[in-house]
């Protein structure tokens, strides 16, 4: 295995949690709900996945419980919003802090315990194909699902009628309601599905990328994921490009550590100003409907925020 191939495999593997989280949040926001608890959800589900796996000795039960917790948190955020009309962003933010503190409280006993991790599923012969082999036929189930999820979620959102309905609820709930779509039902179902994906992302952290548990285990990736959703223009494919781009910069900084000491210290910082820059570009492109960009670039960076994103929906007013 040459070093380039190894690098690609590393990037794909370490990007898996962010792929789950970003696609989960993309689906959530497409239906008009902001799940701002991302960072907190990732932390608590990373801990849950790891702890349950140690207790039950079953990786799959660990992943399942993370998924359930992720879905449950999303459910609570939407429920509070529909029941008490409290702003989703406020509730999400409080959840972030609450779950972060909770994870460090509950996780005390698990710090730096050597833990279980997912085994690779190797398919003979096919796994020998350069690049594709190790990624698709010699990888663990979480990384594999993260890759499959990208085209699948895109197809669901943009090529199925259910996907159009879901986006309709996020764009204009009043019009969606007039067409007989239940805004409440859609928001509950797809926020919970999004939350489940974020939960799986958390489990992927502790069982696949950074084995085990430590305080603040997810490296603030939750906040990065929220930004990448915007960078991706609420499109799973473009968002995934953002995730892998972020991964490339991270890995590059690790690789270059031994080559040039000064540069390697700057490289990990690069994604953040770069992200602000792209967000500014996207925002200005949206403002002018992208008129001053050449067409290919416009298609690449033009993305519309769901019109009712984060806005409380109240029927009968």
């Amino acid at each position, binding site marked *: 295995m040459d070093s380039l191939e190894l690098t690609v495999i590393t990037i794909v593997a370490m990007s898996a949690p962010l792929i789950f989280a970003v696609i989960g949040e993309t689906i959530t926001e497409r239906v008009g709900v902001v799940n701002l608890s991302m960072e907190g959800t990732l932390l608590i589900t990373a801990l849950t996945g790891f702890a349950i796996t140690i207790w039950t000795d079953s990786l799959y039960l660990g992943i399942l419980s993370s998924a359930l917790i992720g879905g449950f948190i999303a459910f609570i955020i939407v429920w509070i919003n529909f029941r008490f009309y409290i702003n989703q962003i406020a509730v999400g933010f409080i959840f972030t802090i609450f779950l972060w503190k909770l994870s460090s409280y509950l996780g005390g006993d698990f710090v730096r315990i050597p833990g279980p991790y997912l085994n690779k599923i190797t398919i003979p012969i096919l796994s020998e194909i350069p690049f594709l082999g190790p990624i698709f036929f010699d990888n663990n189930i979480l990384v594999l699902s993260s890759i499959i999820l990208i085209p699948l979620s895109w197809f669901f959102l943009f*090529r199925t009628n259910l996907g*159009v309905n879901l986006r309709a609820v996020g764009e*204009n709930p009043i*019009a969606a*309601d*007039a067409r007989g779509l239940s805004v409440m039902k859609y928001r509950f179902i797809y926020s919970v599905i999004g939350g489940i994906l974020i939960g799986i992302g958390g489990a992927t952290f502790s069982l696949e990328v950074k084995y085990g548990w430590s305080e603040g285990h997810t490296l603030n990736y939750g906040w990065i994921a929220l930004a990448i959703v915007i960078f991706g223009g609420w499109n799973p494919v473009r968002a995934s490009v953002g995730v892998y781009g972020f991964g490339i910069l991270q890995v590059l900084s690790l690789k270059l550590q031994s080559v040039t000491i000064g540069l390697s210290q700057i490289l990990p910082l690069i994604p953040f100003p770069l992200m602000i820059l792209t967000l500014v570009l996207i925002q200005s492109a949206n403002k002018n409907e992208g008129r001053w960009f050449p067409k290919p670039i416009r298609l690449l960076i033009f993305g519309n925020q769901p019109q009712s994103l984060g806005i409380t929906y109240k029927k*009968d*007013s």
Partner: protein
Amino acid sequence: MKIEFKNISKSFGETIANSEISFSIDGGSIHAIIGENGAGKSTLIKILSGQILPDDGSIKLGNKKMLLGSTIEATNKGIGILGQDPLDFSNFTVLESFLAGNKKSSKIISKSKFEEIISTFSKKFDWEINVNSLIKDLSVGQRQQLELIRLLYLGAKIIILDEPTSGFSLDQKKKVFENLRDLSSKGYTVILVSHKIEEILEICNKVTILQKGKLLETLDLPINPKILIDKMFGPSSNVKNDYKKIEKKSKKNITIKIDKYSDIEKITLNEGTIIGVSGLQGSGSDKFVQSFYDDLSSSKVYYENEVQIPFSEINYVASDRLEKGLFPDMTIMEHIALAYNSKGLINWSNILELTKSLINTYGIVGTPQTQAKNLSGGNQQRLMLALIKENIRLLLLEQPTRGLDISSAIFVWESLLKTKSKKNLVIFSSVDLYEIYDYSDFIICFYDNKIVASGHKNEMARAKVMEKISGK
């Protein structure tokens, strides 16, 4: 199918929108519902379409009672609504907007199939549409037409139109009316909510009049329009446009620069002129009016000696009252404080006095503590007029009477004309040609974001203006 409303009541807080309304609509007819602003028309049809749950009462379709407050029930029973503003999705493509909530589509979207369906249906309207274009790039009329096509495709048998025609061009309106007549002859029931009496007389069989949330009467048509107006507003109401024009005292010249919209660089007029900008929805006439306020590089107003009217003396009254004109959650008193208080601290007792007197002068139905969002459209417009300060020299009005009934519209114009002598210039846009001819001295015609004709009112024949704004 016969529709029977029985004792429908609905109130929002202290406002009674509908009070024990009972009447029926015959199957296969075109039935109008009319009334002043705030008479409860929109509430009543939103109850029928399931968007609002009434406090009391029932609706029967044929012999069956309908489950109320559920849009799913309403759409299943074949009730389709064409809203005041198109109920669609501006960021979607035509195809996506057509498909949202569509129960007849397969799970995976078949683009070619729906391309064909949309084109077959649009042919009935002599209309062509690219399914890939974005909804926000269409005119309001086109969006309403797409909605109508969608309802028909989904098999709606009862079609509600809630003042939809303000967005239609003259040709579109003719086609839509033709189709509505055709549909009713095939057994479809059409309900038209409107306050345009000429429209109702043109196509409806029956008319139900609502007044202050109560049913007044259901009449067979045709009927003398005078009787209908008297019934709507009471016989004492004065709906004739007999305002008094105030003579111009000064004859100073004033110039408006318009080279961005026209080959002509500028127009010079007498001070005190009212300019009417005529154009259909989406023609750019609203943007033109707005540009005098927010794009001073392209549109300017100045005196002979090149002195521009300062920004502080320009007032822009947007047609989107709640979005651009007012703060929905703020009270009338707070609006007055914002407009009139120039000191650092607010003397609330003075503001309260001022608010009370302005509420009185402008006949706003509301208290100083009423939030702007709880005012009806007509009262919102009155509040916006109350916020115009004395020293304003350039007044910009975008569709000043959009969605207002006749009596509110007349009030708006009367109070505008009263203060006209103090203003150097009034520029307003309107889709209503009557309004343009009734109130302006100088007419500018807009089509496709360009000025296509302009001139003093007496030089501009009505037929010519109509042609120009339709792009002929």
